[in-house]
């Protein structure tokens, strides 16, 4: 059969999300960010909330998120996205407000803002990309870097006696009464992508239903930072990261 017989509106099963514009993403080939951006855009569109959604982007690789997803965005100072989102949501309780943050932003410099926003039960969703490394600055150690993992600032591997252990911040957040959803997912297979999408949707619905703070951690790969090709990076992630950061719901009220 040729292409013309198969393609058409009625046979379409997957296409670029409508809220993702034509700007070429700056991410490296195979980066998990692009996949999660698409999920965020798809979910907002499916919920019909493009007009009442305000995203808060971080400092880190996702600093340009506003260029790709056609909603209103604010780009926060490093680590402060939950504080920025807190004010946006409190001042606009009828809007859907979410942050999109990496591990350095959320779990290092912004730890206080993350924990206190969650502890107050701010009615926001937090999308947390955990790729165990600082991608934008070229591959330095992150709070979630695995033990023995090599980065440019731990070239002999992370030594927990000197550098501490990988910070399981979502496990910590799950303990807080303000948190209604704390889940850890991944996007390295199509099935994982579909599951992550369902959890992002739930997080956004929770935010609008004023159920408290929802955190969706996406265990991700950073092939450039890890010095691997994209396929190897996803395999390495599945083999090494998912044992430290296992996929599943830590809390889902």
């Amino acid at each position: 059969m040729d292409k013309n017989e198969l393609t058409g509106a009625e046979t379409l099963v997957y296409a670029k999300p409508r809220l993702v514009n034509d700007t070429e993403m700056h991410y490296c080939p195979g980066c998990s960010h692009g996949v999660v951006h698409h999920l965020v855009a798809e979910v907002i569109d499916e919920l019909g909330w493009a007009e009442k959604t305000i995203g808060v982007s971080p400092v880190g690789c996702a600093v340009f998120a506003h260029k790709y997803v056609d909603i209103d965005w604010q780009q926060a100072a490093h680590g402060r996205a939950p504080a920025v989102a807190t004010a946006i949501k409190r001042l606009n309780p009828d809007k859907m407000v979410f942050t999109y943050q990496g591990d350095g932003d959320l779990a290092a410099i912004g730890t206080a803002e993350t924990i206190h926003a969650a502890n107050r039960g701010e009615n926001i969703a937090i999308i947390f990309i955990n790729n165990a490394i600082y991608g934008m600055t070229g591959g330095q150690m992150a709070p979630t870097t695995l033990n023995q993992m090599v980065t440019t600032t731990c070239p002999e591997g992370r030594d927990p006696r000197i550098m501490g252990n990988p910070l399981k911040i979502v496990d910590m957040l799950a303990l807080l009464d303000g948190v209604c959803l704390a889940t850890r997912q991944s996007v390295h297979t199509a099935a994982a992508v579909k599951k992550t999408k369902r959890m992002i949707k739930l997080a956004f619905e929770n935010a609008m239903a004023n159920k408290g703070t929802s955190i969706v951690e996406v265990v991700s790969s950073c092939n450039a930072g890890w010095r691997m090709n994209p396929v190897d990076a996803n395999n390495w992630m599945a083999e090494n990261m998912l044992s430290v950061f296992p996929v599943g719901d830590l809390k889902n009220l």
Partner: protein
Amino acid sequence: MAKVKGYVEVNTQRCKGCNLCVVSCPADVLELQPREVNDKGYHYVYMKNPDDCIGCANCGYVCPDAVLTVYRKKIEEKEKV
């Protein structure tokens, strides 16, 4: 008996050749161009075995750059006498 046929349309100029779609395909349909590159110099993906595509869209879901559009159609095969 119904058979499912799929088709993957590739935005070749936007493909970054990351190969994630290739390994996600359960039917071994996709491959990176071994020689050809796009304007950015990436070996972009193409349908190497188009007849085997079942339109599952796994490739689309895992593509970080949304360069793939996936179609699926049920084909009624005529019973052989």
